[in-house]
């Protein structure tokens, strides 16, 4: 469905150009690069129709990835494909996770080879990095390639796995110590109005699993899901939490979940994201911000006083709390009078006072006050007043109240794995308007 996939740098130069169909010419792609990428008009919309050609694009660091087409294609699919392509490249590049023009130039032969495999005739095929790494070894594990040539059994296994129902796990994995690590990571997104009312709040959580398990283990994962608990025992007191929406890794049997809300799966080997979820009811906000911003236009002065209060138990600690208090860009001098804890300092490049507290004990509150003098501007252009934003990490705390109830693992060899679990809550978009 895509006619070509192109990697372009921010000057509009084509770095990678792979054509899958003939209806879009290179000339048309160059046009797009010159008219849109190079002029930065790409920021307008992610889907642009130029002279009958649709360009679906996203920019990651200094690279714009483009899928072109003249047909009525599935736009969301191609966009997801581009994201998956970036993830794939990151997994192949060394150092891992780096995606930049330099890396793309360095690895162009690899990228072409990958593109050949991940897309056929414009149709996305296999984009699973772990799987591809088994047979696309360009530049990487050279020795593996040679070995693979001779091992026909292994090859067949790869192709079956690549196309099969359980494409994410190979047969015959063995561990001496069977262990599984579960991380519950929650991002709290809050938007508070000037007066402190909650405009919207939700928690987006992910369950990361690192599985070091032998064989083909059958897993069942249980959380304090309200619907599940109610199904199991309607008389029980523990009410559980209401989950708005859950998305699962492809290994989870969706039909089974839909039927009885049980989460069953055979895990991939190593680290993977088992599920993501979203909860918007009964959220415990770990911090409360009380900002007071007084403007004295005739004195060209603003006064700030920002109170920060931790609303979790005293025995818990938040770490790396950063409160970003924006000041107008035309600030002439910023005086921080006091910061109850940590350090508060004006950082001109951020246009903000950055208040950093390394360790913040539960149930404590601190106050920061400051005075800002601004140079009056000739034009009466307004200050956009970005919101105060907060960043933090609170271990052993979940904003949603989600708890893991069990993880049952069963394999033919009947081993008893060790299970580890961690909870952490982070700030997502934690904004308080001023």
């Amino acid at each position, binding site marked *: *469905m895509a006619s070509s996939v192109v990697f372009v740098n921010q000057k509009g130069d084509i770095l*990678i150009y792979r054509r899958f169909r003939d*209806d879009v*010419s290179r*000339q048309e792609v*160059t*046009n797009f690069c*010159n*008219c849109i990428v190079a002029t930065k008009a790409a*920021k*307008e919309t*992610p*889907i642009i*129709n*130029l*002279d009958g050609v649709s360009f679906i694009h*996203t920019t990651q660091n200094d690279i714009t990835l483009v899928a072109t087409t*003249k047909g*009525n*294609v*599935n*736009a*969301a699919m191609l*966009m*997801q494909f581009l994201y998956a392509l970036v993830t794939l490249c990151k997994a192949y590049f060394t150092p891992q996770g780096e995606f930049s023009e330099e890396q793309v130039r360095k690895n162009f032969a690899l990228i*072409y*080879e990958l593109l050949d495999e991940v897309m*056929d*005739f414009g*149709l*996305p095929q*296999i984009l*699973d990095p772990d799987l591809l790494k088994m*047979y696309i070894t360009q530049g990487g594990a050279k020795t593996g*390639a040679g070995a693979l*040539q001779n091992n*026909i059994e292994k*090859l067949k296994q790869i*192709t079956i796995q690549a*196309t*099969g*129902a359980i*494409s994410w796990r190979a047969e015959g994995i063995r561990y001496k110590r069977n262990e599984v690590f579960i991380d519950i990571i929650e991002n709290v997104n809050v*938007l508070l109005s000037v007066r402190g009312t909650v*405009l*919207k709040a*939700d928690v987006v959580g992910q369950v990361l699993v690192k599985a070091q398990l032998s064989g083909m283990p059958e897993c069942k994962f249980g959380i304090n899901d309200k619907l599940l608990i109610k199904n199991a025992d309607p008389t029980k007191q523990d009410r559980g939490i209401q989950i*708005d*929406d*859950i*998305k*699962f890794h*492809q290994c989870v049997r*969706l039909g089974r*979940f*839909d039927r009885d809300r049980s989460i069953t799966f055979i895990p991939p080997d190593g680290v993977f994201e088992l599920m993501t979820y*979203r909860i918007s009811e009964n959220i415990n906000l770990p911090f409360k911000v009380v900002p007071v911003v007084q403007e004295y236009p005739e004195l060209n002065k603003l006064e700030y006083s920002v109170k920060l209060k931790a609303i979790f138990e005293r025995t818990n600690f938040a770490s790396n709390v950063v409160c970003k208090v924006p000041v107008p860009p035309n600030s002439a001098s910023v005086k921080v009078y006091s910061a109850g804890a940590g350090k508060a300092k004006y950082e001109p490049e951020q246009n903000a006072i950055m208040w950093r507290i390394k360790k913040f004990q539960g149930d404590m509150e601190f106050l920061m006050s400051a005075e800002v003098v601004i140079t009056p501007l000739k034009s009466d252009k307004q*200050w956009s*007043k*970005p919101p105060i934003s907060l960043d933090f990490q609170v271990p052993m705390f979940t904003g949603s109240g989600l708890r893991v109830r069990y993880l049952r693992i069963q394999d033919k060899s009947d081993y008893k794995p060790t299970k580890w679990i961690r909870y952490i809550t982070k700030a997502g978009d934690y904004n308080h308007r001023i």
Partner: protein
Amino acid sequence: MATIDPFDFFKSSKRSEVAELELELNHNKLEKRMEALKKVIAMMTVGKDVSSLFFPVLKCVETNNVDLKKLVYLYIINYAKTQPDLAVLAVNTFRKDARERLNPLIRGLAVRTMGCIGVDTILDYLCEPLKESMGDEDPYVRKTAAVCVAKLFEINQQRVEDYKFIEKLEEMLGDGNGMVVSNAVAALTDIQHTKGKIVQMTQTILYKLLNALPECSEWGRIYILDFLADNMLPSAAIKSGGIEEIIQRIVPNLAHSNSAVVLSATKVILKYLDYMTGDTEMVRSVCRKMAPPLISLMNSEPEIQYIAIRNINLIIQKRPYIIDKEVRVFFCNFQDPLYVKLEKLEILIRLADLKNVDSLLNELKDYAQEVDVLFVRRSISAIGRIAIKLDRAADRCIQVLHQLINTKIDYVVQEAIIVIKDIFRKYPNRYESIIKDLCENLKALDNVDARASMIWIVGEYGDRIDNAVDLLTNFSQSFKDEARKVQHALLNATVKLFLKVEGNGGAEELVQDVLRMATEESDNPDLRNRGYIYWKMLSSNPEMAKQIILCEKPTISEDASTLEPQILDKLVGNISMLSSVYYKVPDTFVKKIRDRINERLDLENEEVQVISQQSKQAQAEYVDSTGVKKSEYIKESQVAQATYMVDLLSLDDQPPMKQGGAGTNAIDDLLGIIDTTPPVQHSTQPVQQQHPMQINGGGSDLLDLIDTTAHVQQPSIQAVQSSALDDLLGGMGQESHTETLLQKAQFVKVPYQVVLNGQTAGQKGQQGLQIEAAFQRDGNGALVLDMKLTNLSTVPISDCLMKLNQNHFGLALHDPFPTPFTLRPQESRSLTLTCHQNRAPGGPPPLRPPVLIQAGINCSLDLFYFTLPALLQVLLSPTQLEYQMCSRIWSSFPVMQECKMTMPSMSAQITNGHALITRLQENRIYYLNQATNEQGSEVLYVYCSPEEGDQGVNQHEIVVAEIGITPTGGVEIQATSQSGYMSLLFLQAVKFVLSANT
């Protein structure tokens, strides 16, 4: 004949990078070959021509190393389309690899690659292995073969039918492997795009697919879900309870982490829900399940959010209660990109109701104080649209607007004026108290819409504004420089004011002044017409005029962005597809694949000359986020031209009523609608322009109406023109003109082109020889090379020896060079060298025009290489064929390569069909016959073939073309030949021949 062997001549050059690579490609060591191949690929990607390395690269394919093989294949794919002859040589490799016993990856690779070689001649060799691959034991090979069928279909539909590949794909739907099934589905979908429906959905197929669904990768799920939405099982074929079951099987996909799967699943569910009537409880429970996954999409990447929000806008028009309590999710975040914010605003307006309006207005008020001007303006406009949508919230909306006006920020106040005008139209006589504040907080009115709106308000409430006459007089001072919209508003407002405040001193002078300016000084026909009409009305019967002009206006409503049900259904059926992002039905922006390819060939044909123009055009042709093309704005000027004609008709000093046809309608409407029109909603167009400014009262309505009349007129004009041109052809009769034409063979002279620039360095680094040259036919019909040599160096040039490289058309120089030949510094000299054509097996055919002949000149200064362009008409054979012979050859073409071209105009010397034929025959493009083509218009058939030495005519390179004359005096040419390059060369030559003046 020349004495030196052409091959030697070209080998004598210094060893280049390419030659170096060639050596490395032949190296024994695998690593060396690998490195060299990577370099070749690198050069290829930056656009360098490395096609000369085809043979050494192809040799590398003989390896067991998959990595090396892949690189070779990558190279082949890249050159296969442009150098089909070379690609043919790789066929055996594919056949061998596709039958490789042990390694399924190699088999898959071969099947995948051979499908990319769109060369018709080798298809036969590939169909057989493909057939085997579809039944391969390995699923990887099968899934690749499925896609290969779609590729084959694009190259040659006949082959796909001959080998029954479509039936095979349908069989594959029952394959045990999920990926094979989903790729077969994807291939079928692709083929259906070209061919129309081929799969009749049945209960069995549906359940096969539903069973495969959980086994598929994320992408596979999307193919299957999209296919299910496109190919609905007819409701009659579903047993009772079947719909629920189908939906239940799809619902689990809503929990997939890939947002495209979620959207596609939503689409299928929505379509099957349409089958359910009455059963609302069930429908509601399904809808409840769809809401959370859709809302979760708001946490994804901004690009996906954008697609999702545009889709949600459709979904909630279709089933409003899916997302009715979730307004807060669509509140804008400070960090959201602008394109996401603007789409969220649209959703907020749609979701606004009396329960949430307070929090919504607070939100919008906040947005209105941000810095991005566009966002601020759309937010204010949103407040106005909510006021119009919800009667009982209008008070609160006005309050908010009032507060915003008091910020005194210019663009805020101006935008507020625009929306308040609409609010006044909806709720007349309710909020006039705000006018005072408007006037007070206004510093400047630089926005056209704001000016027009303000003028409208003053005209409408002139009797209540003390200084209305002064205000409008102020505006009228700059009448001539105002935008059209403002002029219209001013004209309307002054007339209304005059009628309202009768007897008030200034009003009469003002109205006369404005009427005079509108009728006498304006060159805008609309404005003049309207001025005349007002004038006539006011002078003949002021009482009647008052009744007409000051009548009660129909109310407006907030539904500018609501789609018609049929279009909405079509768009909902396209959720997640581009169609649903553009809000356009697919047919309006998608072309059939065949057309697309033809179009591209045309484009490439023209490319050489028009590259610079094209990029400019493309820049202008840019579609903004709401899918409104810039070109639609451009059309306005054309419309204006067309309206001018209407205007000329009606200005004939006669009462306008007596005009016939479209003109009358327009005028009738003009009278009928003066200032009473509800806003024109473009509801008849499939494309709904999602623009908040849609609600325009007054002025622009008229334009829209005239716009439609203009469209009505255009076809008839064309009809007149085309009939005139029928005569042009008709005068020619059936008899052949060959006899008379042969006597005076007047070849069109080809102008010189600079082929070697004085600044180009030769092989030894010397520069200074400039050559301009062109291949010609001289008066006797002999092929010559006309050259002009200039010595720009400081030393004399002598001992010249020139040579053409072997080439496809066998062009060679008769004599190397006249001797003695000396060119002093700064001297220029023209020469004519006789050429001959000897079609011995030569180089590869040219890929696209022009034919470039490599040449070299060795002289005392240096050795220079350059290329000489040759147009096809100088290479044509004088041999004429019998009509029967020609049509026999033509009908025996096993494959046809058609190319089309349209020339908007011809040389002024070609005044009729006769002259056209004469001109072509003079240049050895011979008249065949005249006929009526499939579209029913008169066309000429002509043919030509390149010179073949002693062998006469080469049947493979005959070009037969259909030439039709367009109504505008241009020509439409459709060239057919057995090889694509000949058609392209032909078009280029004809274009030259027909546009040249002799």
